């Protein structure tokens, strides 16, 4: 499944979607950036409540296919633009990380 398809089946909102064709394989939930760097796998969807610009660098380096901001979190100023220029997809949802993970699971991830 790619990110574009995931948005539909899991009912996610688009913050920025520069790379809609990125494949999604599994998910990782976490807010401690070092933890995410070390444990998230390539092409995971990364669910977090962190909203500062460092999430873009972490997403790039860990090669995740998208960031999903949970609990209705919105990105800090400038983050959306940085993500767009780096080709990093950012999605959002008012749901909790758990509810989002459930939706991803149900959608077949």
């Amino acid at each position, binding site marked *: 499944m790619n990110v574009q398809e995931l948005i539909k089946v899991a009912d996610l909102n688009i913050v920025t979607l520069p790379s809609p064709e990125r494949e999604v394989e599994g998910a990782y939930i976490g807010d401690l*950036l070092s933890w995410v760097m070390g444990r998230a796998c390539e092409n995971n969807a990364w669910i977090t409540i962190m909203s500062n610009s460092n999430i873009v660098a972490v997403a790039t380096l860990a090669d995740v296919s998208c960031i999903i901001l949970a609990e209705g979190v919105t990105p800090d100023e400038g983050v959306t633009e940085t993500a767009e220029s780096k080709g990093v997809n950012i999605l959002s949802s008012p749901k909790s990380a758990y509810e989002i993970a459930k939706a991803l699971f149900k959608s077949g991830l």
Partner: protein
Amino acid sequence: MQEHLIFRFDVDGEDFTSAGQASVHVKKNLRQIGIDPETIRRVSIAMYEGEINMVIHAGGGVAEVHVYDEYIEIILDDRGPGISDIDKAMQEGYSTASDNIRSLGFGAGMGLPNMKKNTDKLDIFSTVGVGTKIVMRVNYKN
């Protein structure tokens, strides 16, 4: 001396929002010269942790990546406060980062452990009050 490729970056210690830029650049450069993805991932993670440490603890520094035929070497050099107890700093979960830093998602005490985990050789040269130099080596896959 054999010629090899070197990437060099000044890491800005003031700017948290751009922390990680050197690592992102290195990742892109290594991709362009055809390094295998697993090696790139390990180099990127190790370097990012080092870069963040320099920003959090040392007010910036210099990062160099040397691409040799057999391995990649990352050298991080700062004039920060130094590490008083390296064994302690190597323990997962140990951190001296402030609450402010933690609220940004850093300071989990995973930096040095992640650097060790993702490299084949890690040497730390640190003198309190003088600075810290970290030399990491990542061998190519196979």
